[in-house]
C-alpha cells in the first residue's frame, strides 16, 4: 500500500485559503461572524496540533497510566460539555447521575469492544484505545446531552400532568413514563439515523482516515461497521442508564416533584 502524501507547510497554508475566502465574504456582506471564524480556526489548529503531539507521544511511550489519565480527562470534558449544552441549570443530584451513567456506560462498552471485538493486546495499546474511546465517549456525550435536555424540558413543561398523576397515586416512574421514553428517543435517534446515510451520503471520518493512510477500503469498512455498532451500543447503554436513574432526580424521597434544578 502507498503511504499517505505528507502535507508540507505550503500545502497546509493553501488549505487556509478556504478560510480567507470566507473571511472576505463575511466582511464584504457585513455579517458579524468574522471574529468567531478567526478564533474557531485558530483554536481548531492549535488544539489539533497539540493533540497530534500528545498522541504521538502516547503511542511512542505506551503505558497503562497514560491511558487511565486520558480516560479521566475525556470523561471530565464530556460531562462538562453535557452540562454546558443543556439550557437549564442542573442540580448536583442529576449531575451525579450523568457522571455515573457516562463512566459505567462508556467504559463497559469500550472494554468490551477492545477486548472482545477488536481483541487488542495489551488492551491499553494507545493506537487503538484512544481513538475508539474518543469516538464512543464523544457519541455518548451527544446522546446524553440530548437526553438530559429532553428530560429536563419535559418535566418543566409537563409539571401539571406529572403532579396530576401523583395525586392519583402514580409512582414517580409512572408519572414520567412518557417523558422518559421521549428523552430516550431523542437521545438515541441521531445515532440510529446516522447509520442510514453512512457510505451513501458521506464517508465516515475514521474510514476516510484509514483509506487515506493507505489501508485497504475493505479493512477500513470492517472497522467502520464494527465501530458504528459499538457506538450504537455504547450510546444506548449510557442513555438507558441515564434515563433510568435520571428521572429520580426530579423527585424527593416522599415522591414529591422537585424542579431537578438548583434550588
Amino acid at each position: 500500500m502507498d503511504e499517505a502524501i505528507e502535507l508540507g507547510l505550503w500545502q497546509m497554508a493553501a488549505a487556509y485559503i478556504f478560510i480567507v475566502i470566507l473571511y472576505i465574504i463575511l466582511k464584504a456582506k457585513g455579517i458579524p461572524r468574522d471574529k468567531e471564524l478567526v478564533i474557531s480556526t485558530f483554536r481548531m489548529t492549535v488544539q489539533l496540533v497539540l493533540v497530534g503531539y500528545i498522541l504521538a507521544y502516547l503511542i511512542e511511550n505506551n503505558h497503562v497510566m497514560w491511558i487511565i489519565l486520558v480516560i479521566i480527562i475525556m470523561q471530565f470534558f464530556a460531562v462538562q460539555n453535557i452540562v454546558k449544552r443543556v439550557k437549564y441549570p442542573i442540580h448536583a443530584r442529576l449531575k451525579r447521575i450523568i457522571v455515573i451513567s457516562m463512566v459505567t456506560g462508556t467504559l463497559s462498552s469500550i472494554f468490551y469492544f477492545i477486548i472482545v471485538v477488536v481483541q487488542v493486546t495489551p488492551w491499553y495499546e494507545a493506537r487503538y484505545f484512544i481513538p475508539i474511546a474518543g469516538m464512543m465517549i464523544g457519541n455518548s456525550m451527544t446522546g446524553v446531552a440530548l437526553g438530559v435536555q429532553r428530560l429536563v424540558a419535559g418535566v418543566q413543561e409537563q409539571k401539571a400532568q406529572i403532579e396530576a398523576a401523583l395525586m392519583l397515586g402514580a409512582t414517580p416512574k409512572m408519572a414520567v413514563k412518557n417523558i422518559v421514553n421521549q428523552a430516550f428517543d431523542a437521545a438515541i435517534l441521531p445515532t440510529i439515523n446516522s447509520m442510514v446515510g453512512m457510505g451513501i451520503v458521506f464517508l465516515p471520518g475514521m474510514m476516510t482516515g484509514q483509506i487515506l493512510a493507505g489501508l485497504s477500503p475493505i479493512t477500513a469498512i470492517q472497522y467502520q461497521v464494527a465501530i458504528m455498532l459499538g457506538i450504537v451500543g455504547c450510546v444506548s447503554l449510557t442513555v438507558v442508564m441515564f434515563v433510568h436513574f435520571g428521572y429520580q432526580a426530579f423527585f424527593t424521597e416522599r415522591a414529591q416533584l422537585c424542579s431537578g434544578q438548583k434550588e
Partner: protein
Amino acid sequence: MFILKNVQYKAIIAVDELHIPAQKTTCIVGESGGGKSTLIRLLNQLISCDKGEIFYKNQPIHTLDPIQLRREVVMIPQAPVIFDGTVKDNLLIGLTFSGKPLAGENELTDVLTTVCLEKELAEPAGPLSGGEQQRLSLARALLMNPEVYIFDEPTSALDEETEKKVMDNVVGEVKRKRKTLIIVTHSKKVAQTYADVVIEMKNGSAATVKKGVKKNG
C-alpha cells in the same frame, strides 16, 4: 380523618390546630392566595410541611408511604389535566396509576352519567371543553373509590345549573359510600349547600379556621 397541629409551610400556611372529620363533606373557603390549595396539597402529600405535624387516621402523615396515601386520599387539581387518549383511557388511568383492577364499560358509562358528561367512551379526550374536562377528572376520581376525595374548585368552569346537578350527584354518591370529601371552593353557594364543616382560610400566611356544621348528610 385529618388532624393538623402547628403546621407551617413557607409563609403560606400557619395552622395551629385543625380537624377534618371522616365521612363528612368539608368545604375550604377563603380568598385567593389564602392557602387553600396549599393546604390540600399538604393533605395529599404533594408537599410536606416545614413545621408541625399532620395526622391521617391518627398516624403522623410523614410516616406513611406517600404513594399508598395518595391512593387512599385522591386529589384532583384546580386545572383539570387530560392525558393522551380517549375518554375511556382518561377514566381508567386513575385505576392504572393506583394499581387497582380496571372497571368495565358499564361502570364507566355510569360514572359519566353521575358527572353529567354525555360523551362516548371512544371519543378523544383532548378536544373536550374546560367544563367537560373538569367533569371527566371528577369521574376519574369517583371511579377510584378512595377513602378521601379532595377536589380543588371542581366546578369552577360549569354553569350554575350543571354545577348543581353534578354536585348533587357527586356529593350524594360520596355520602352513600360513606367516604370523606374535602372541597376547596370559592363558591359560597357550594359551601352552604353541601358542607358539613366549613373551614375558612384568610390572610395568606395566617389561616383562621371557622367550623360550623351546616347540615348533616
